[in-house]
Protein backbone atom coordinates (compact mmCIF):
# COMPACT_ATOMS: atom_id res chain seq x y z
CA UNK A 1 0.00 0.00 0.00
CA UNK A 2 1.25 3.43 -0.96
CA UNK A 3 0.49 5.73 1.99
CA UNK A 4 0.87 8.97 0.03
CA UNK A 5 -1.54 7.83 -2.64
CA UNK A 6 -4.07 6.62 -0.08
CA UNK A 7 -3.96 9.98 1.72
CA UNK A 8 -4.36 11.82 -1.56
CA UNK A 9 -7.39 9.69 -2.48
CA UNK A 10 -8.94 10.23 0.96
CA UNK A 11 -8.28 13.94 0.63
CA UNK A 12 -10.17 14.24 -2.67
CA UNK A 13 -13.19 12.30 -1.42
CA UNK A 14 -13.13 14.50 1.69
CA UNK A 15 -12.71 17.66 -0.42
CA UNK A 16 -15.83 16.84 -2.41
CA UNK A 17 -17.91 16.18 0.72
CA UNK A 18 -16.81 19.46 2.30
CA UNK A 19 -17.64 21.43 -0.86
CA UNK A 20 -21.09 19.89 -0.76
CA UNK A 21 -21.45 20.61 2.95
CA UNK A 22 -20.71 24.30 2.59
CA UNK A 23 -22.89 24.60 -0.47
CA UNK A 24 -25.98 23.29 1.24
CA UNK A 25 -27.08 26.47 2.96
CA UNK A 26 -30.09 24.81 4.57
CA UNK A 27 -27.81 22.33 6.30
CA UNK A 28 -25.60 25.13 7.59
CA UNK A 29 -28.58 27.14 8.81
CA UNK A 30 -29.95 24.06 10.56
CA UNK A 31 -26.55 23.51 12.16
CA UNK A 32 -27.06 26.86 13.88
CA UNK A 33 -30.80 26.85 14.40
CA UNK A 34 -31.04 23.39 15.91
CA UNK A 35 -28.72 24.00 18.88
CA UNK A 36 -30.30 27.42 19.46
CA UNK A 37 -33.71 25.81 19.66
CA UNK A 38 -32.47 23.08 21.97
CA UNK A 39 -30.52 25.37 24.24
CA UNK A 40 -32.94 28.27 24.41
CA UNK A 41 -36.28 26.45 24.54
CA UNK A 42 -35.34 23.25 26.28
CA UNK A 43 -32.79 24.97 28.48
CA UNK A 44 -35.28 27.58 29.64
CA UNK A 45 -38.14 25.22 30.27
CA UNK A 46 -35.91 22.93 32.27
CA UNK A 47 -34.18 25.65 34.23
CA UNK A 48 -36.99 25.52 36.79
CA UNK A 49 -35.50 22.18 37.79
CA UNK A 50 -32.34 23.74 39.09
CA UNK A 51 -34.30 25.81 41.59
CA UNK A 52 -34.98 22.49 43.31
CA UNK A 53 -31.82 21.83 45.39
CA UNK A 54 -32.10 18.04 45.01
CA UNK A 55 -32.34 18.31 41.24
CA UNK A 56 -29.47 20.77 41.22
CA UNK A 57 -27.35 18.26 43.12
CA UNK A 58 -28.23 15.52 40.63
CA UNK A 59 -27.32 17.76 37.72
CA UNK A 60 -24.15 18.82 39.45
CA UNK A 61 -24.79 22.47 38.65
CA UNK A 62 -27.13 25.33 39.38
CA UNK A 63 -27.49 26.07 35.70
CA UNK A 64 -29.26 23.45 33.53
CA UNK A 65 -27.61 24.85 30.41
CA UNK A 66 -24.17 23.95 31.77
CA UNK A 67 -25.43 20.41 32.13
CA UNK A 68 -27.12 20.33 28.77
CA UNK A 69 -24.48 21.78 26.42
CA UNK A 70 -22.36 18.58 26.12
CA UNK A 71 -25.59 16.63 25.48
CA UNK A 72 -26.54 18.96 22.64
CA UNK A 73 -23.05 18.66 21.14
CA UNK A 74 -23.30 14.89 21.09
CA UNK A 75 -26.79 14.98 19.65
CA UNK A 76 -25.57 17.15 16.81
CA UNK A 77 -22.75 14.71 16.13
CA UNK A 78 -25.28 11.88 16.35
CA UNK A 79 -27.64 13.40 13.80
CA UNK A 80 -24.75 14.23 11.47
CA UNK A 81 -23.38 10.72 11.74
CA UNK A 82 -26.53 8.66 11.35
CA UNK A 83 -27.25 10.07 7.93
CA UNK A 84 -23.63 9.80 6.81
CA UNK A 85 -24.39 6.63 4.86
CA UNK A 86 -26.93 8.47 2.72
CA UNK A 87 -24.23 10.09 0.61
CA UNK A 88 -22.86 6.72 -0.53
CA UNK A 89 -26.36 5.66 -1.54
CA UNK A 90 -26.90 8.85 -3.52
CA UNK A 91 -23.56 8.32 -5.20
CA UNK A 92 -24.69 4.82 -6.10
CA UNK A 93 -28.04 5.97 -7.40
CA UNK A 94 -26.62 8.82 -9.48
CA UNK A 95 -23.77 6.75 -10.90
CA UNK A 96 -21.07 8.79 -9.19
CA UNK A 97 -19.95 5.77 -7.21
CA UNK A 98 -19.13 3.90 -10.44
CA UNK A 99 -17.20 6.91 -11.63
CA UNK A 100 -15.05 6.79 -8.50
CA UNK A 101 -14.69 3.01 -8.74
CA UNK A 102 -13.34 3.12 -12.30
CA UNK A 103 -10.75 5.67 -11.20
CA UNK A 104 -7.41 4.34 -9.90
CA UNK A 105 -8.17 5.14 -6.26
CA UNK A 106 -8.06 2.98 -3.16
CA UNK A 107 -11.52 1.64 -2.44
CA UNK A 108 -11.04 2.32 1.28
CA UNK A 109 -10.53 6.00 0.48
CA UNK A 110 -14.25 6.38 -0.24
CA UNK A 111 -15.58 5.44 3.25
CA UNK A 112 -12.52 7.01 4.91
CA UNK A 113 -12.96 10.32 3.12
CA UNK A 114 -16.65 10.40 3.95
CA UNK A 115 -16.01 9.63 7.63
CA UNK A 116 -13.30 12.26 7.80
CA UNK A 117 -15.74 14.80 6.40
CA UNK A 118 -18.33 13.83 9.03
CA UNK A 119 -15.67 14.38 11.68
CA UNK A 120 -14.71 17.82 10.43
CA UNK A 121 -18.34 18.80 9.90
CA UNK A 122 -19.09 17.92 13.52
CA UNK A 123 -16.24 20.23 14.59
CA UNK A 124 -17.92 23.13 12.86
CA UNK A 125 -21.21 22.29 14.51
CA UNK A 126 -19.69 21.92 17.96
CA UNK A 127 -17.91 25.24 17.60
CA UNK A 128 -21.22 26.88 16.71
CA UNK A 129 -22.75 25.35 19.84
CA UNK A 130 -19.87 26.61 21.97
CA UNK A 131 -20.36 30.13 20.64
CA UNK A 132 -24.11 30.05 21.30
CA UNK A 133 -23.56 28.56 24.75
CA UNK A 134 -21.06 31.27 25.69
CA UNK A 135 -23.53 33.91 24.55
CA UNK A 136 -26.16 32.28 26.75
CA UNK A 137 -23.80 32.55 29.73
CA UNK A 138 -22.42 29.02 29.93
CA UNK A 139 -19.00 28.86 31.52
CA UNK A 140 -16.51 26.16 30.48
CA UNK A 141 -14.22 25.68 33.48
CA UNK A 142 -11.30 24.27 31.47
CA UNK A 143 -11.41 26.97 28.81
CA UNK A 144 -10.17 26.43 25.27
CA UNK A 145 -8.26 23.17 25.91
CA UNK A 146 -11.46 21.77 27.39
CA UNK A 147 -13.45 22.85 24.35
CA UNK A 148 -10.93 21.14 22.05
CA UNK A 149 -11.24 17.97 24.14
CA UNK A 150 -15.03 18.09 23.74
CA UNK A 151 -14.56 18.66 20.02
CA UNK A 152 -12.50 15.50 19.84
CA UNK A 153 -14.99 13.37 21.79
CA UNK A 154 -17.99 14.63 19.86
CA UNK A 155 -16.32 13.97 16.52
CA UNK A 156 -15.23 10.48 17.61
CA UNK A 157 -18.85 9.81 18.42
CA UNK A 158 -19.85 11.20 15.02
CA UNK A 159 -17.43 8.76 13.39
CA UNK A 160 -18.91 5.83 15.36
CA UNK A 161 -22.41 6.65 14.15
CA UNK A 162 -21.18 7.47 10.65
CA UNK A 163 -19.42 4.11 10.44
CA UNK A 164 -22.60 2.30 11.49
CA UNK A 165 -24.58 4.30 8.97
CA UNK A 166 -22.10 3.59 6.15
CA UNK A 167 -22.06 -0.11 7.01
CA UNK A 168 -25.84 -0.29 6.94
CA UNK A 169 -25.92 1.72 3.71
CA UNK A 170 -23.55 -0.79 2.12
CA UNK A 171 -25.75 -3.68 3.21
CA UNK A 172 -29.19 -2.20 2.53
CA UNK A 173 -28.47 -0.22 -0.65
CA UNK A 174 -31.68 1.74 -0.11
CA UNK A 175 -31.89 5.30 1.14
CA UNK A 176 -35.40 4.78 2.50
CA UNK A 177 -34.49 1.66 4.48
CA UNK A 178 -31.40 3.34 5.89
CA UNK A 179 -33.40 6.35 7.07
CA UNK A 180 -36.02 4.12 8.66
CA UNK A 181 -33.45 2.17 10.65
CA UNK A 182 -31.37 5.16 11.65
CA UNK A 183 -34.45 7.12 12.74
CA UNK A 184 -35.48 4.14 14.79
CA UNK A 185 -32.06 4.10 16.47
CA UNK A 186 -31.61 7.80 17.12
CA UNK A 187 -34.29 8.74 19.63
CA UNK A 188 -33.99 5.67 21.91
CA UNK A 189 -30.23 6.11 21.88
CA UNK A 190 -30.66 9.68 23.00
CA UNK A 191 -33.28 9.19 25.68
CA UNK A 192 -31.64 6.17 27.25
CA UNK A 193 -28.47 8.16 27.79
CA UNK A 194 -27.32 10.86 30.17
CA UNK A 195 -27.50 13.51 27.43
CA UNK A 196 -30.64 15.24 28.73
CA UNK A 197 -31.21 13.87 32.21
CA UNK A 198 -28.81 12.93 34.97
CA UNK A 199 -28.64 9.15 35.35
CA UNK A 200 -29.05 9.60 39.07
CA UNK A 201 -32.61 10.79 38.44
CA UNK A 202 -33.45 7.70 36.38
CA UNK A 203 -35.21 4.53 37.50
CA UNK A 204 -32.76 1.67 38.04
CA UNK A 205 -33.55 -0.21 34.80
CA UNK A 206 -33.05 2.90 32.70
CA UNK A 207 -29.85 3.74 34.54
CA UNK A 208 -28.49 0.29 33.65
CA UNK A 209 -29.09 0.98 29.97
CA UNK A 210 -27.74 4.50 30.21
CA UNK A 211 -24.54 3.20 31.79
CA UNK A 212 -23.71 1.05 28.76
CA UNK A 213 -25.07 3.45 26.13
CA UNK A 214 -22.08 4.65 24.05
CA UNK A 215 -23.66 8.08 24.02
CA UNK A 216 -23.21 8.27 27.80
CA UNK A 217 -19.55 7.37 27.38
CA UNK A 218 -19.13 10.45 25.27
CA UNK A 219 -21.27 12.83 27.32
CA UNK A 220 -19.90 11.97 30.78
CA UNK A 221 -16.28 12.99 30.16
CA UNK A 222 -17.38 16.04 28.17
CA UNK A 223 -19.50 17.13 31.10
CA UNK A 224 -16.63 16.57 33.51
CA UNK A 225 -14.35 18.74 31.43
CA UNK A 226 -16.99 21.42 30.93
CA UNK A 227 -18.17 21.65 34.54
CA UNK A 228 -15.51 20.24 36.88
CA UNK A 229 -12.07 20.25 35.28
CA UNK A 230 -9.36 17.81 34.17
CA UNK A 231 -10.29 14.90 36.42
CA UNK A 232 -8.48 12.21 34.42
CA UNK A 233 -9.82 9.22 36.32
CA UNK A 234 -13.27 10.26 35.03
CA UNK A 235 -12.03 11.03 31.53
CA UNK A 236 -9.86 8.19 30.29
CA UNK A 237 -12.56 5.51 30.22
CA UNK A 238 -14.72 7.53 27.85
CA UNK A 239 -11.79 8.57 25.71
CA UNK A 240 -10.48 5.02 25.33
CA UNK A 241 -13.95 3.56 24.76
CA UNK A 242 -14.81 6.12 22.07
CA UNK A 243 -11.47 5.81 20.29
CA UNK A 244 -11.80 2.05 20.27
CA UNK A 245 -15.40 2.10 19.02
CA UNK A 246 -14.56 4.68 16.36
CA UNK A 247 -11.73 2.48 15.07
CA UNK A 248 -13.96 -0.61 15.02
CA UNK A 249 -16.80 1.27 13.35
CA UNK A 250 -14.44 2.61 10.67
CA UNK A 251 -12.96 -0.83 10.04
CA UNK A 252 -16.42 -2.39 9.71
CA UNK A 253 -17.55 0.40 7.38
CA UNK A 254 -14.54 -0.17 5.10
CA UNK A 255 -15.11 -3.92 5.10
CA UNK A 256 -18.83 -3.62 4.34
CA UNK A 257 -18.11 -1.11 1.61
CA UNK A 258 -15.61 -3.49 0.00
CA UNK A 259 -18.18 -6.25 0.10
CA UNK A 260 -20.91 -4.14 -1.41
CA UNK A 261 -18.84 -3.30 -4.51
CA UNK A 262 -17.38 -6.76 -5.11
Amino acid at each position, binding site marked *: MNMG*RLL*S*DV*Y*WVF*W*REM*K*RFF*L*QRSRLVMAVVQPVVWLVLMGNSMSGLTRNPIAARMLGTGNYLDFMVPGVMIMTALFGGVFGGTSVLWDR*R*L*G*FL*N*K*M*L*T*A*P*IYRAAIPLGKLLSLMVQSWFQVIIIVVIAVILGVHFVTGLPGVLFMLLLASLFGVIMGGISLSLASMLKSIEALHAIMNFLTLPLMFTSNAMFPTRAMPVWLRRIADVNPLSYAVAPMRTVAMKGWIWQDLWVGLVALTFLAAVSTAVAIRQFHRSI*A
Partner: protein
Amino acid sequence: MSAMIEAEGLTKTFPGGVTAVDGVTFTVEEGEIFGFLGPNGAGKSTTIAMLTTLMKPTGGNARVAGMSIIRQAYQVRLAIGYVSQDLAVDDNLTGYENLRLQAGFYHIPRAEVERRITEVLEMVELSDRANDLVETYSGGMRKRLDIACGLIHRPRLLFLDEPTLGLDIQTRREIWQYIQHLRDDIKMTIFLTTHYMDEADALCDRIAIIDYGRIKVMDTPSRLKSTLGDELVEFRFATGTEEEIAAAVETIRRQGFVTDVREAGERGYVAVVTNGETAIPRIFDAIAGMPAHIGAITHKRPSLDDVFLHYTGHEMRENGGSRDEAMRSRMIMRRARG
Protein backbone atom coordinates in the same frame (compact mmCIF):
# COMPACT_ATOMS: atom_id res chain seq x y z
CA MET B 1 -2.14 -2.32 -35.11
CA SER B 2 -2.42 -4.02 -31.78
CA ALA B 3 -5.49 -5.10 -29.89
CA MET B 4 -6.84 -2.67 -27.29
CA ILE B 5 -9.49 -5.06 -25.98
CA GLU B 6 -9.35 -8.84 -26.25
CA ALA B 7 -12.35 -10.52 -24.65
CA GLU B 8 -12.34 -14.30 -24.39
CA GLY B 9 -15.57 -16.06 -23.45
CA LEU B 10 -16.50 -13.21 -21.11
CA THR B 11 -19.44 -14.32 -18.98
CA LYS B 12 -21.44 -12.81 -16.14
CA THR B 13 -24.02 -14.82 -14.25
CA PHE B 14 -25.69 -12.97 -11.40
CA PRO B 15 -26.34 -14.66 -8.06
CA GLY B 16 -30.03 -14.94 -8.99
CA GLY B 17 -29.06 -17.21 -11.90
CA VAL B 18 -29.56 -14.72 -14.71
CA THR B 19 -26.76 -14.80 -17.27
CA ALA B 20 -26.48 -11.24 -18.56
CA VAL B 21 -23.39 -11.83 -20.69
CA ASP B 22 -22.89 -15.28 -22.10
CA GLY B 23 -19.45 -16.20 -23.44
CA VAL B 24 -18.69 -13.05 -25.39
CA THR B 25 -15.50 -13.08 -27.51
CA PHE B 26 -14.28 -10.11 -29.53
CA THR B 27 -11.27 -7.94 -30.27
CA VAL B 28 -11.11 -4.16 -30.53
CA GLU B 29 -8.14 -2.81 -32.47
CA GLU B 30 -6.23 0.28 -31.47
CA GLY B 31 -7.67 3.44 -32.98
CA GLU B 32 -11.10 2.17 -33.94
CA ILE B 33 -14.59 3.06 -32.76
CA PHE B 34 -16.20 -0.20 -31.83
CA GLY B 35 -19.89 -0.34 -31.02
CA PHE B 36 -21.98 -2.75 -29.03
CA LEU B 37 -25.47 -2.52 -30.47
CA GLY B 38 -28.42 -4.08 -28.75
CA PRO B 39 -31.69 -3.42 -26.94
CA ASN B 40 -31.91 -2.51 -23.25
CA GLY B 41 -31.07 -5.52 -21.15
CA ALA B 42 -29.05 -7.24 -23.90
CA GLY B 43 -25.90 -7.24 -21.76
CA LYS B 44 -24.16 -4.13 -23.09
CA SER B 45 -23.77 -2.34 -19.77
CA THR B 46 -22.76 -5.51 -17.98
CA THR B 47 -20.02 -6.04 -20.56
CA ILE B 48 -18.78 -2.48 -20.02
CA ALA B 49 -18.94 -2.98 -16.25
CA MET B 50 -16.62 -5.98 -16.58
CA LEU B 51 -14.22 -4.29 -19.00
CA THR B 52 -13.97 -1.22 -16.75
CA THR B 53 -13.30 -3.42 -13.67
CA LEU B 54 -16.57 -2.45 -11.97
CA MET B 55 -17.65 -6.08 -12.00
CA LYS B 56 -15.73 -9.33 -11.97
CA PRO B 57 -16.63 -11.81 -14.71
CA THR B 58 -17.92 -15.19 -13.56
CA GLY B 59 -16.31 -16.81 -16.60
CA GLY B 60 -13.73 -16.00 -19.26
CA ASN B 61 -11.35 -13.07 -19.15
CA ALA B 62 -10.39 -9.98 -21.07
CA ARG B 63 -7.26 -7.96 -21.62
CA VAL B 64 -7.81 -4.22 -21.78
CA ALA B 65 -4.87 -2.12 -22.98
CA GLY B 66 -2.83 -5.29 -22.63
CA MET B 67 -3.77 -5.91 -19.00
CA SER B 68 -5.99 -8.51 -17.41
CA ILE B 69 -9.24 -7.08 -16.02
CA ILE B 70 -9.13 -9.69 -13.26
CA ARG B 71 -5.52 -9.58 -12.05
CA GLN B 72 -4.43 -6.09 -13.10
CA ALA B 73 -7.54 -4.04 -12.36
CA TYR B 74 -5.53 -1.06 -11.12
CA GLN B 75 -3.43 -0.83 -14.31
CA VAL B 76 -6.58 -1.15 -16.41
CA ARG B 77 -8.16 1.74 -14.52
CA LEU B 78 -5.13 3.94 -15.20
CA ALA B 79 -5.37 3.31 -18.94
CA ILE B 80 -9.10 3.78 -19.53
CA GLY B 81 -11.66 6.53 -19.37
CA TYR B 82 -15.28 5.72 -18.56
CA VAL B 83 -18.35 7.80 -19.24
CA SER B 84 -21.41 6.05 -17.91
CA GLN B 85 -24.97 6.57 -19.08
CA ASP B 86 -25.83 8.11 -15.70
CA LEU B 87 -24.61 11.69 -16.31
CA ALA B 88 -22.47 11.12 -13.26
CA VAL B 89 -21.33 14.66 -12.60
CA ASP B 90 -21.76 16.22 -9.17
CA ASP B 91 -24.54 18.81 -9.30
CA ASN B 92 -23.26 20.46 -6.14
CA LEU B 93 -19.90 21.34 -7.63
CA THR B 94 -19.01 23.65 -10.48
CA GLY B 95 -17.87 22.28 -13.82
CA TYR B 96 -14.30 23.23 -12.93
CA GLU B 97 -14.54 21.54 -9.53
CA ASN B 98 -15.84 18.33 -11.09
CA LEU B 99 -12.77 18.27 -13.33
CA ARG B 100 -10.43 19.20 -10.47
CA LEU B 101 -11.82 16.27 -8.48
CA GLN B 102 -11.34 13.91 -11.39
CA ALA B 103 -7.76 15.14 -11.86
CA GLY B 104 -7.20 14.42 -8.16
CA PHE B 105 -8.57 10.90 -8.50
CA TYR B 106 -6.17 10.26 -11.40
CA HIS B 107 -3.17 11.71 -9.52
CA ILE B 108 -2.39 14.20 -12.23
CA PRO B 109 0.64 16.27 -11.20
CA ARG B 110 -0.28 19.64 -9.76
CA ALA B 111 1.67 21.53 -12.41
CA GLU B 112 -0.31 19.79 -15.16
CA VAL B 113 -3.80 20.12 -13.71
CA GLU B 114 -4.78 23.61 -14.87
CA ARG B 115 -3.59 22.98 -18.41
CA ARG B 116 -5.48 19.71 -18.68
CA ILE B 117 -8.68 21.25 -17.32
CA THR B 118 -8.46 24.16 -19.78
CA GLU B 119 -7.81 21.72 -22.60
CA VAL B 120 -10.82 19.47 -21.99
CA LEU B 121 -13.12 22.41 -21.21
CA GLU B 122 -12.24 23.93 -24.57
CA MET B 123 -12.84 20.67 -26.34
CA VAL B 124 -16.37 20.31 -25.02
CA GLU B 125 -16.98 24.06 -25.31
CA LEU B 126 -17.74 24.69 -21.65
CA SER B 127 -14.95 27.16 -20.82
CA ASP B 128 -17.36 30.06 -20.26
CA ARG B 129 -19.53 28.05 -17.86
CA ALA B 130 -16.73 26.37 -15.94
CA ASN B 131 -17.36 28.28 -12.71
CA ASP B 132 -21.12 27.78 -12.65
CA LEU B 133 -22.69 25.07 -10.55
CA VAL B 134 -23.57 21.99 -12.56
CA GLU B 135 -27.10 22.34 -11.14
CA THR B 136 -27.59 25.17 -13.62
CA TYR B 137 -26.41 23.14 -16.64
CA SER B 138 -28.68 21.70 -19.32
CA GLY B 139 -28.67 17.97 -19.97
CA GLY B 140 -26.40 18.35 -22.98
CA MET B 141 -23.91 20.45 -21.00
CA ARG B 142 -23.85 17.83 -18.26
CA LYS B 143 -23.09 15.14 -20.78
CA ARG B 144 -20.30 17.22 -22.28
CA LEU B 145 -18.83 17.82 -18.83
CA ASP B 146 -19.07 14.12 -18.06
CA ILE B 147 -17.15 13.31 -21.25
CA ALA B 148 -14.56 15.95 -20.32
CA CYS B 149 -14.15 14.20 -16.94
CA GLY B 150 -13.45 10.95 -18.76
CA LEU B 151 -10.71 12.59 -20.82
CA ILE B 152 -8.76 14.50 -18.15
CA HIS B 153 -6.12 11.78 -17.78
CA ARG B 154 -5.78 11.31 -21.57
CA PRO B 155 -6.81 7.66 -21.62
CA ARG B 156 -5.79 5.42 -24.51
CA LEU B 157 -9.21 3.83 -24.49
CA LEU B 158 -12.53 5.49 -23.76
CA PHE B 159 -15.71 3.64 -22.79
CA LEU B 160 -18.95 5.41 -23.61
CA ASP B 161 -22.08 3.74 -22.30
CA GLU B 162 -25.08 5.01 -24.28
CA PRO B 163 -23.43 8.39 -24.87
CA THR B 164 -26.54 10.11 -26.26
CA LEU B 165 -29.28 8.51 -24.17
CA GLY B 166 -32.10 10.96 -23.58
CA LEU B 167 -30.45 13.86 -25.44
CA ASP B 168 -32.04 15.97 -28.16
CA ILE B 169 -31.00 15.58 -31.80
CA GLN B 170 -28.76 18.63 -31.92
CA THR B 171 -26.83 17.62 -28.81
CA ARG B 172 -26.50 14.07 -30.13
CA ARG B 173 -24.81 15.36 -33.27
CA GLU B 174 -22.43 17.48 -31.17
CA ILE B 175 -21.48 14.45 -29.10
CA TRP B 176 -20.92 12.45 -32.29
CA GLN B 177 -18.53 15.15 -33.48
CA TYR B 178 -16.52 14.98 -30.24
CA ILE B 179 -16.29 11.22 -30.56
CA GLN B 180 -15.08 11.45 -34.15
CA HIS B 181 -12.60 14.14 -33.15
CA LEU B 182 -11.16 11.90 -30.44
CA ARG B 183 -10.60 9.07 -32.87
CA ASP B 184 -9.39 11.14 -35.84
CA ASP B 185 -7.21 13.74 -34.12
CA ILE B 186 -6.12 12.11 -30.86
CA LYS B 187 -6.10 8.50 -32.14
CA MET B 188 -8.08 7.35 -29.14
CA THR B 189 -9.74 3.94 -29.21
CA ILE B 190 -13.44 4.11 -28.38
CA PHE B 191 -15.75 1.40 -27.20
CA LEU B 192 -19.35 2.50 -27.13
CA THR B 193 -22.70 0.92 -26.53
CA THR B 194 -25.92 2.15 -28.01
CA HIS B 195 -29.40 1.06 -28.83
CA TYR B 196 -29.70 3.71 -31.53
CA MET B 197 -29.13 2.20 -34.97
CA ASP B 198 -28.30 5.53 -36.59
CA GLU B 199 -25.66 6.19 -33.96
CA ALA B 200 -23.92 2.89 -34.59
CA ASP B 201 -24.18 3.50 -38.32
CA ALA B 202 -22.79 7.03 -38.19
CA LEU B 203 -19.93 6.48 -35.75
CA CYS B 204 -18.68 2.94 -35.60
CA ASP B 205 -15.92 1.38 -37.65
CA ARG B 206 -17.17 -2.01 -36.54
CA ILE B 207 -20.18 -3.12 -34.58
CA ALA B 208 -21.20 -6.22 -32.69
CA ILE B 209 -24.90 -6.92 -32.43
CA ILE B 210 -25.62 -8.30 -28.97
CA ASP B 211 -28.87 -9.89 -27.88
CA TYR B 212 -29.65 -11.91 -24.75
CA GLY B 213 -26.00 -11.72 -23.72
CA ARG B 214 -24.58 -13.16 -26.92
CA ILE B 215 -22.88 -11.62 -29.93
CA LYS B 216 -25.00 -12.44 -32.96
CA VAL B 217 -22.77 -10.93 -35.60
CA MET B 218 -19.77 -8.59 -35.81
CA ASP B 219 -18.55 -6.57 -38.79
CA THR B 220 -18.43 -3.11 -40.33
CA PRO B 221 -21.85 -1.46 -40.69
CA SER B 222 -21.63 -1.40 -44.49
CA ARG B 223 -20.67 -5.06 -44.77
CA LEU B 224 -23.44 -6.01 -42.36
CA LYS B 225 -25.94 -4.18 -44.50
CA SER B 226 -24.63 -5.69 -47.73
CA THR B 227 -24.97 -9.23 -46.36
CA LEU B 228 -28.70 -8.61 -46.59
CA GLY B 229 -28.40 -8.21 -50.34
CA ASP B 230 -28.48 -4.92 -52.07
CA GLU B 231 -32.07 -4.11 -51.49
CA LEU B 232 -35.21 -5.09 -49.69
CA VAL B 233 -38.85 -5.33 -50.65
CA GLU B 234 -41.35 -5.17 -47.84
CA PHE B 235 -44.89 -6.36 -48.51
CA ARG B 236 -48.08 -7.13 -46.63
CA PHE B 237 -50.91 -9.42 -47.66
CA ALA B 238 -54.41 -7.97 -47.77
CA THR B 239 -56.31 -11.20 -48.39
CA GLY B 240 -55.73 -14.91 -48.13
CA THR B 241 -55.82 -17.63 -45.49
CA GLU B 242 -52.70 -18.71 -43.68
CA GLU B 243 -52.13 -21.56 -46.12
CA GLU B 244 -52.72 -19.38 -49.14
CA ILE B 245 -50.26 -16.77 -47.89
CA ALA B 246 -47.70 -19.46 -47.08
CA ALA B 247 -48.03 -20.82 -50.62
CA ALA B 248 -47.59 -17.34 -52.11
CA VAL B 249 -44.51 -16.67 -49.97
CA GLU B 250 -43.06 -19.99 -51.02
CA THR B 251 -43.53 -19.06 -54.68
CA ILE B 252 -41.82 -15.70 -54.16
CA ARG B 253 -38.97 -17.41 -52.32
CA ARG B 254 -38.32 -19.67 -55.33
CA GLN B 255 -37.81 -16.72 -57.71
CA GLY B 256 -34.25 -16.37 -58.98
CA PHE B 257 -33.89 -12.70 -57.94
CA VAL B 258 -35.02 -13.39 -54.35
CA THR B 259 -32.32 -14.51 -51.91
CA ASP B 260 -34.43 -14.68 -48.76
CA VAL B 261 -37.89 -13.99 -47.39
CA ARG B 262 -38.52 -13.36 -43.69
CA GLU B 263 -41.63 -12.67 -41.67
CA ALA B 264 -42.03 -9.11 -40.41
CA GLY B 265 -45.16 -8.68 -38.36
CA GLU B 266 -48.79 -9.61 -39.01
CA ARG B 267 -49.16 -10.81 -42.63
CA GLY B 268 -45.96 -8.86 -43.43
CA TYR B 269 -42.76 -10.12 -45.06
CA VAL B 270 -39.38 -8.76 -46.15
CA ALA B 271 -37.74 -10.15 -49.29
CA VAL B 272 -34.03 -9.68 -49.91
CA VAL B 273 -33.67 -9.11 -53.64
CA THR B 274 -30.85 -8.58 -56.10
CA ASN B 275 -32.58 -5.95 -58.19
CA GLY B 276 -35.07 -3.77 -56.39
CA GLU B 277 -36.11 -1.69 -59.40
CA THR B 278 -37.79 -4.59 -61.17
CA ALA B 279 -38.50 -6.74 -58.13
CA ILE B 280 -41.92 -5.28 -57.35
CA PRO B 281 -43.59 -6.02 -60.71
CA ARG B 282 -41.88 -9.42 -60.81
CA ILE B 283 -43.25 -10.35 -57.40
CA PHE B 284 -46.75 -9.42 -58.58
CA ASP B 285 -46.26 -11.47 -61.75
CA ALA B 286 -45.07 -14.48 -59.76
CA ILE B 287 -48.20 -14.72 -57.60
CA ALA B 288 -50.66 -13.35 -60.17
CA GLY B 289 -52.96 -16.36 -60.26
CA MET B 290 -52.87 -17.14 -56.57
CA PRO B 291 -55.67 -16.47 -54.02
CA ALA B 292 -53.51 -14.41 -51.62
CA HIS B 293 -53.23 -10.76 -52.63
CA ILE B 294 -50.61 -8.21 -51.64
CA GLY B 295 -52.17 -5.02 -50.23
CA ALA B 296 -49.05 -2.89 -49.69
CA ILE B 297 -45.51 -3.09 -51.00
CA THR B 298 -42.42 -0.90 -50.64
CA HIS B 299 -38.85 -1.03 -51.80
CA LYS B 300 -35.99 0.13 -49.58
CA ARG B 301 -32.29 -0.13 -48.96
CA PRO B 302 -31.35 -2.15 -45.90
CA SER B 303 -30.65 -0.25 -42.69
CA LEU B 304 -29.05 -1.52 -39.51
CA ASP B 305 -32.60 -2.08 -38.23
CA ASP B 306 -33.00 -4.73 -40.92
CA VAL B 307 -29.63 -6.20 -40.02
CA PHE B 308 -30.71 -6.36 -36.41
CA LEU B 309 -34.00 -8.02 -37.32
CA HIS B 310 -32.20 -10.45 -39.59
CA TYR B 311 -29.72 -11.65 -36.97
CA THR B 312 -31.89 -11.61 -33.85
CA GLY B 313 -35.24 -12.56 -35.34
CA HIS B 314 -36.98 -9.67 -33.58
CA GLU B 315 -37.02 -5.90 -33.60
CA MET B 316 -35.34 -3.78 -30.96
CA ARG B 317 -37.68 -4.14 -28.05
CA GLU B 318 -38.37 -1.89 -25.12
CA ASN B 319 -38.48 -4.51 -22.44
CA GLY B 320 -39.70 -3.93 -18.91
CA GLY B 321 -36.80 -4.09 -16.50
CA SER B 322 -36.91 -4.17 -12.74
CA ARG B 323 -38.49 -1.37 -10.72
CA ASP B 324 -35.05 -0.19 -9.73
CA GLU B 325 -33.96 -0.03 -13.34
CA ALA B 326 -37.09 1.85 -14.31
CA MET B 327 -36.45 4.40 -11.58
CA ARG B 328 -32.86 4.73 -12.68
CA SER B 329 -33.76 5.39 -16.27
CA ARG B 330 -36.38 7.92 -15.20
CA MET B 331 -33.74 9.73 -13.18
CA ILE B 332 -31.31 9.70 -16.09
CA MET B 333 -33.99 11.14 -18.34
CA ARG B 334 -34.81 13.83 -15.81
CA ARG B 335 -31.17 14.80 -15.48
CA ALA B 336 -30.67 14.66 -19.22
CA ARG B 337 -33.43 17.17 -19.72
CA GLY B 338 -31.68 19.36 -17.15
